[in-house]
């Protein structure tokens, strides 16, 4: 279920959704978190994501297990991209599917929140002017 929790390539959410497709599961919720370049974000062109990759895989498995304990009929998949991610492209995708939509929304939100809180991933922002900085939190 947790195939390819880490990828160096653009995230393909349609494939993640297809992996969870099951006629018993009527509701599917997908989250994409993208590199933002908004008014408060400066001229970020790229974020370089690095990770403690073995632990990302292990922690995602634990997060999905925690989700299953709360929503036993939901299934989840998640993927974090590492390396250079241009502004506007997703760095993380989480998909949850369940027989009914409530559990799918709640399980997806839980996995996203826990992933942001628990995954050992770091980001270095690169700006238009060639500078860069670690961005924490």
């Amino acid at each position: 279920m947790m195939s390819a929790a880490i990828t160096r390539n653009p995230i393909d959410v349609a494939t993640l959704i297809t992996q969870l497709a099951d006629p018993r599961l009527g509701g599917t919720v997908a989250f994409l978190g993208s590199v933002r370049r908004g008014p408060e974000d400066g001229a970020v062109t790229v974020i370089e994501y690095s990770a403690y990759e073995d632990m990302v895989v292990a922690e995602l498995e634990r997060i999905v297990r925690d989700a299953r304990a709360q929503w036993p009929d939901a299934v989840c998949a998640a993927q974090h991209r590492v390396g250079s991610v241009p502004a506007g492209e997703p760095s993380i995708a989480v998909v949850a599917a369940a027989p009914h939509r409530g559990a799918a929304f709640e399980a997806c939100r839980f996995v996203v929140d826990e992933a942001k809180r628990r995954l050992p991933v770091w980001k270095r922002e690169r700006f238009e002017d060639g500078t860069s900085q670690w961005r924490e939190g």
Partner: protein
Amino acid sequence: MNKHGQAVSNGTISIRCRFFARFAELLGRDGCELTVPAGATVSDAVQLVRQAVEHGDRLPDTPLTAVNCEHVHADHRLADGDELAFLPPLAGG
């Protein structure tokens, strides 16, 4: 013999430290081997790294840590062969 094939000295254990992201930059390295007293906690190991490893004092007193790919508190007791990871503030997603 521990699992790395090293002799375990009387009353000490060997662990592997790993430094990530900004911590690796601060120390100029991404890891080191460390020998600590048997019964040492994560907190003990962190203090040893801060004293014994070059630029170790650039690390915070109480960094986030993980042992064998799992988040742990500072009072977690280390075992021979453990991998202790020093984690800057997380910024995933």
